[in-house]
């Protein structure tokens, strides 16, 4: 595949759900000179290998599996150049990109760049898990790719680490592919996804969810032979030939980290304002690069918004970046997105802040603007969950000091 040219009005980096959604919307808005760069051989992102029928309700008015959803998202993007097999290797100031495609390295230029490189789960390494390095330890995403793309099964009896929504989806994938889910492990005393989900899965599929159980060690020389766990002070060995780490998504933002763009170590993504705009006004972002982790619908909506903001930016309708106020926060808040607000706020755009906690938190979450409560709500959340803050519009006019507090109880 070769590119038609090396300069575009808009280049979208990443042809997953949010990127495709941005591409489609740009077309609808009359921005025609758009290029989507996708490093995989096919656009569509992670849903291509997620077979749970939980996609498309809002966009296509019925539930469908990931691959169909990804296909439909691809088909909606007409007239836009989709370049697959292209890796962006560097983000330079003012929308200059270094990339590498099937014909080698190239430099591209765009008036506006939309970053939509998505996210991936934390590996056992990133979690600093103890033990050996046998074959059969992987993230759930990698397992999905093994069974759905390569049509191979790497193990037969697996221990699932984590209890996020996706962790329970893993049970279904295992069942469909003849893999027994021995048990699920959760460090905390309750599950990250609602307890009801966990109880239902325990009851229907017989997969025990061990709460308050720490994975101590992975065992096995050539392939996994088991895991050592600590349960109520007792060390116990669970036999298995695979360990799957689920969730703990982290944005794929290394390009941002190595550029002139502001990176937020708390969210793991780029620092943006409510217009999904980075510190260099040539750059916008959407989807799960922004923070861990949202559903396909939210990503697709962020893609639509990014396209709208890009169009506004092209016609100079966005407030200057210099007029932005950072949002402050402290423990136990892990991150807040967006990281700053640009004023004046465009009233037709509904403002929504996303907050996540470091640890299980029960208390009252408050958005304080200029010393006054602008939003307040009791919360009882687990880490990796996202809390939405939708402040009253008036509360933010002429804000000069914005802070998010959590009073723990």
């Amino acid at each position, binding site marked *: 595949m070769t590119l038609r040219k090396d300069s575009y009005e808009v280049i979208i980096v990443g042809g997953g759900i949010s990127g495709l959604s941005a591409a489609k919307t740009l077309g609808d808005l009359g921005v025609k000179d758009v290029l989507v760069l996708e*490093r*995989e*051989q096919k656009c569509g992102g992670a849903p291509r290998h997620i077979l749970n029928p939980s996609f498309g309700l809002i966009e296509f008015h019925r539930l469908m599996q990931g691959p169909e959803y990804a296909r439909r998202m691809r088909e909606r993007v007409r007239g836009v150049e989709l370049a697959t*097999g292209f*890796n962006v*290797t560097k983000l330079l100031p003012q929308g200059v990109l270094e990339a*590498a*495609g*099937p*014909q*080698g*390295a190239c430099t591209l230029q765009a008036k506006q760049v939309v970053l939509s490189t998505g996210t*991936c*789960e934390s*590996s*056992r*390494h*990133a979690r*600093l*898990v*103890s*033990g*050996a*390095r046998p*074959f*059969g330890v*992987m*993230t759930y*995403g*990698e397992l999905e*790719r*093994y*069974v759905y*793309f*390569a*049509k*191979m*099964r*790497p*193990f*037969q009896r697996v221990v699932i680490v984590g209890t996020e929504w996706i962790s329970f989806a893993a049970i279904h994938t295992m069942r469909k*592919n*003849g893999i027994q889910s021995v048990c699920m492990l959760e460090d905390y005393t309750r599950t990250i996804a609602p307890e009801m989900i966990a109880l239902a899965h325990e009851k229907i599929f017989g997969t025990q969810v061990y709460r308050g159980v720490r994975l101590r*060690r992975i065992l096995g*020389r*050539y*392939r996994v032979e088991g895991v050592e766990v600590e349960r109520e002070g007792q060390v116990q060995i669970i036999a298995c030939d695979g360990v799957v780490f689920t969730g703990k998504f*982290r944005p*794929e933002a*290394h390009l941002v*980290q*190595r550029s002139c763009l502001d*990176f937020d*170590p708390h969210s*793991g993504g780029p620092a943006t304002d409510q217009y999904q705009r980075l510190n260099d006004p040539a750059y916008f972002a959407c989807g799960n690069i922004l923070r861990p982790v949202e559903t396909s619908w939210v990503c697709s909506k962020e893609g639509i918004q990014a396209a709208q903001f890009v169009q506004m930016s092209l016609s100079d309708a966005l407030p200057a970046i210099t007029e932005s106020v950072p949002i402050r926060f402290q423990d136990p808040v892990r991150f807040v997105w967006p990281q700053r607000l640009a004023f004046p706020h465009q009233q037709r755009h509904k403002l929504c802040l996303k907050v996540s906690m470091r640890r299980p938190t029960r208390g009252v979450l408050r958005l304080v603007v200029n010393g006054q409560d602008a939003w307040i709500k009791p919360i009882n959340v687990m880490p990796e969950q996202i809390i939405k803050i939708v402040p009253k519009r008036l509360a933010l006019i002429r804000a000069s000091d914005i802070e998010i507090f959590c009073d723990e109880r």
Partner: protein
Amino acid sequence: MSDIDEETFDIAVIGGGVVGCAVLRAFTLAGASSVLLERGADILSGASKGNSAILHTGFDAPPDSLELRCIREGYKEYLQIHEKLNLPLVKSSALMVAWTNEQTRALPGIVEKAHANGVTNVTQISLDELRRREPNLSPAAKGAVHIPGESFIDPWSTPLAYVHQALANGAKVYTLCEVQGGEFNNNHWKLKTNKGTFKSRTVINCAGNFGDRVEAINRPSPFQIIPRKGQLLVYDKPAADLFNSIILSVPGKRTKGVLVFRSVFGNVLVGPTAEDQEDREQAEVTETVLLDLKTRGELIIPDLAGQNIIATFAALRPATQFSEYQIEAIPDRCWITVGGIRSTGLTSSLGIAKYVLRLYEEEFGKLSPLKQISWTLVPNLAEHLPRPFQQPSAGEVVCFCEMVTRKEIEDTFSSLLPPGDISGLKRRTRCSMGRCQGYYCGHKVARLVQGCLQVPLPLTELS
């Protein structure tokens, strides 16, 4: 048991670690018919699979030691041959930083020792100079020594290049070939392996973590291997922008302390630890130690705190009860022992090989060197030099994190020494070694290697 190879070799090298690979190369080029016997599925399956990839000057090696001599010679030869083998070299220089007053007082002694060791360009530098060189270093630093010659290289392509050149010049390599015993009769060794017997006039024991056990085939081992585990953290590439040099610690009694350093692949490493253990094969990582390494790394470079850890690993160094290398020729038994090469082996291997070759020629007679030496090129994996994905012939990139093309992976299987297992492929190409640890490419690589590895991946086809 039958002979697996009809030939009676001049030398049989037991162990395909970095030392064995360099020894095989040196003897092959010197004209000896040589065979390498490796118990793993691939070379570098033992101690050499994990090391800090630093090309040492020897500035802090024990004075007047054989280790120092081999490091110095190895360093010199690497500089001479690396371009001919297409091996990278990053002349980063190193800083040995003092964090306590006691360590600061030790710095002049370190400079003195370096000079005595022949590394005369080592100097103590001022705090201002240190800040200028490393603005992101913790302000708690109290002083530093600058070692301009310390560099880093590719820890796996280097020994691979040695083996490739040996193979191209007539050597043979057998993997999954464990030497289980041997008989010495009529000035000939008959080595028993799981694959059959090998005949050789001289045996060179380079068996690393199994050095004492292999030695016992010949004589009661004068040394005992006490595997010393080193755990390391690997940070994603953006962390490499935080510093320039190899940041060394002032050494303690037993080890060189924790280092913060880059790799030629562009990652950052923090480690190693030094933990004695009994197991000679398996090196496990432990969460508490990894967390401690993280803390120590952040004390040296505080901004590491915001960086992503993408991999953790542990390796075993073949330490013995002695600090010195255990290299010895036993002429009446036609045996040469090369043991206890603890942690400087990557640098010293070429020097060791030269030294061993000299021992051999002194004791067993001159060899007649090859008239024409072939030079072989290994594929480049270093970030600062051109990589295949940047070329017009790139094709599909399979591993996005390390930018490994499909062709690079396929090419390994038609190379002089194809990978024997998945780890061997990773060491040759870097596939699945990056930030996603296989999420994007694990399944693609699994398909590509099907039917190509001696030790296949344990996968079941789904209908």
